[in-house]
């Protein structure tokens, strides 16, 4: 398992490749990998966004994500969990979050990944402050729904 909060840019595909090499995951044992990648958009609430600052609560955020991963490992049949989240200054097209889970079968992988992502969105202490193209600064006040 790896839980990480970083102010460095995240390259998701390299991250996933390296994690699979370094973790205890055994090739041939997992049949399903579910990956969610959250990426910064350049528009929100009909306005152009030029950059964003992500704040978190050092200590609590890591603790919350660790508990989330531990609970997922208890509830679903997972072989490993990876959660990486960016903080600090981010630009459109930057990766904000990567959640990945490995399981023998897709049912557990899909359900666990969605659960982790929805819990992260609704409860993990992160906050986004956008800088609009017109120079205005504004806090993002709520998330979009997780279901269509």
């Amino acid at each position, binding site marked *: 398992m790896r839980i990480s909060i970083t102010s460095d840019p995240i390259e998701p595909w390299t991250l996933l490749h390296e994690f699979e090499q370094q973790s205890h995951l055994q090739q041939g044992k997992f049949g399903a990998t579910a990956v969610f990648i959250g990426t910064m958009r350049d528009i929100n609430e009909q306005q152009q966004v030029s950059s964003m600052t*992500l704040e978190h*609560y050092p200590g609590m955020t890591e603790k919350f994500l660790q508990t989330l991963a531990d609970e997922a490992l208890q509830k679903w049949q997972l072989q490993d969990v990876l959660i990486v989240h960016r903080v600090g200054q981010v630009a459109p097209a930057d990766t*904000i979050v990567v959640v990945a889970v490995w399981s023998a079968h897709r049912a557990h992988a899909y359900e666990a990944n969605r659960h982790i992502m929805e819990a992260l969105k609704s409860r*993990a*202490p*992160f906050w986004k402050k956008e800088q609009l193209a017109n120079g205005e600064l504004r806090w993002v006040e709520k998330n979009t729904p997780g279901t269509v």
Partner: protein
Amino acid sequence: MSIQVRFFASLRERLNQPDTQVPAQAVQTVLDIWQQVTGESQLPANVLIAVNMEYVDAAHAVNDGDEVAFFPPVTGG
């Protein structure tokens, strides 16, 4: 003998309130801390609270050495 009090994100900006400490003997609950530090009698419904980095509600009892945090709805991911 004090309790550490922290504010985050838009709530910190709205209150213009840096992290502070309150004497433990002056307060019993999270709501007492909110009233003492902000001067506001009511805790806004959308404010989230953590004591020692675990979510709690406003009636939660506080003790010497606790860290109490107030913050707005979260928007990560």
